[in-house]
């Protein structure tokens, strides 16, 4: 079984972003960048499959600027066998991401394409579902367990009312939720080894994909700031305030 994992370079989850002064976007220059946490989880699952003998090759792909090579080197250090950078400097919307991944899938013929359920920058939660539609494959979104049994994958999904179990034939598209696993850290020897693993570079045009944005960003703003309230000295005062001031009890 071959697994293609899509990994995105995003502002690190611990960094608080600022809106650009011209309200055209978010300031990202100079900020710490990392692999999207959900993609780390997807990658970890693919590597575990390989270690367990369920997968024989793990390919990591990233779409973004030259610096996304760093994200791919991390993926190689964690255990991907090789990497593909689809180099593009502007923003790429989820529909274009799905089209690029479809083109890669047609070249690579993976059995599973694993993505994070959402990227923590634009929070769209779209690319996996769109990719599944474009390929005409089944989709398993928000996956918190995934077991390969022959030519099917049994997944547990985190849904609003609890947990849902689905059985998907290969090939399929899966998107990782938080509790699928705890990603490992790359060891120093593996980081060194990753430098020698193959990393191919291509671009959307070579794959025949138009990445022109469909959405026009009109303005990006700070959300309204919530005013800090008061500190109350005791439970008695708290209950009194909730009853007589906020009138919510």
């Amino acid at each position, binding site marked *: 079984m071959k697994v293609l994992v899509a990994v995105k370079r995003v502002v690190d989850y611990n960094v608080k972003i600022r809106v650009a002064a011209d309200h055209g976007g978010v300031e990202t220059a100079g900020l710490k960048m990392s692999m999207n946490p959900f993609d780390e989880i997807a990658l970890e699952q693919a590597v575990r499959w390989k270690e367990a003998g369920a997968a024989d090759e793990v390919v990591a792909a990233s779409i973004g600027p030259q610096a996304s090579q760093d994200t791919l080197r991390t993926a190689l250090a964690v255990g991907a066998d090789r990497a593909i950078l689809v180099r593009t400097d502007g923003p790429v919307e989820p529909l274009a991401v799905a089209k690029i991944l479809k083109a890669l899938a047609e070249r690579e013929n993976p059995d599973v394409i694993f993505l994070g359920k959402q990227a923590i920058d634009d929070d769209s939660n779209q690319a996996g579902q769109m990719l599944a539609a*474009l390929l005409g494959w089944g989709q398993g979104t928000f996956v918190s367990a995934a077991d390969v049994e022959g030519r099917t994958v049994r997944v547990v999904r985190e849904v609003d009312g609890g947990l849902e*179990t689905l059985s998907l034939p290969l090939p399929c598209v899966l998107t990782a939720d938080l509790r699928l696993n705890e990603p490992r850290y790359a060891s120093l020897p593996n980081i060194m080894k990753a430098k020698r693993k193959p990393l191919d570079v291509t671009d959307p045009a070579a794959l025949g994909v138009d990445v022109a*944005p469909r959405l026009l960003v009109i303005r*990006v703003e700070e959300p309204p700031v919530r005013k800090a309230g008061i500190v109350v000295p005791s*439970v008695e005062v708290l209950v009194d305030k909730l009853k007589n001031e906020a009138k919510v009890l």
Partner: protein
Amino acid sequence: MRALVLAEHDNSLLKPATLSAVTAALALGGSATVLVAGSGCAKAAEAAGRIAGIDKVLVADHPGLKDALAEPLAALLSSLAPDFDALLAPATSTGKSVMPRLAAMLDVQPVSDIVAVAGPDTFVRPIYAGNALATVKSRDAKRVLTVRATAFAPAGEGEGAAVEALDFAPPPCPVTFVSRTGHAADRPELTSAKVVVAGGRGIGSEAAFAMVGKLADLLGGAVGATRAAVDAGYIPNDSQIGQTGKIVAPDLYFAMGISGAIQHLAGMKDSRIIVAINKDPEAPIFQIADYGLVADVFEAMPKLIDALKT
């Protein structure tokens, strides 16, 4: 402008998020039709007919639609798409799975989790865990949207719209539904509850979480949790509130032993009144709480429960 709203339901009851999605659909400035897709879903369709402001209800009743899988639902919506300019669903786990799949079939870039409608093709949505709000204009032929339910008031009750049955059989679906495990339904649904009592890692154990539940029950509220509390196994996954969990905006939110990571705040900061109890006076949750109490939750919670009983 004609809008179609995919209803969220369990075949008999309509989920309140549907009503908020209808409000968003009507804000586009045209008509709104509600689609009820399920199996044996006549009751849900009847309930949908009572939503104010809609022109009609379309019902697709087929065994292949029973489990709300994304593949048949997207196929159904795409077969109806030629008649509509906008297709919407609440941003629930079903809506989030179905609408992007539909959008790709229509070659449309969807807009997720909208919190405001600024025009028929212009929407506001949170990005970066709600630390920024982006206003975006769609330049596609159609709009495909998911709607953050807490940002739109639920549509009221109307005179009764016509219910029209569709003749739809879904194409063969590659995916097989196996099972669903639900959690206690004896409390109000988290996303529509008026009161939410949420606990964090500071609660310390599954047993101690029972006290959070006791407080919630006393107030007729729902129980929520942070990612840390869910990861620690104190409470099931569907109670998680935050950037990647559920978004809530109740009248009253209790944050018990919650420090206030930005990922958690993203899911609850639009609550009307926020109460935080935490022993760490430096916890970020106090910066957004209306009422903060610096105290050990294990001492404060029993006192609070006693005070509310009287």
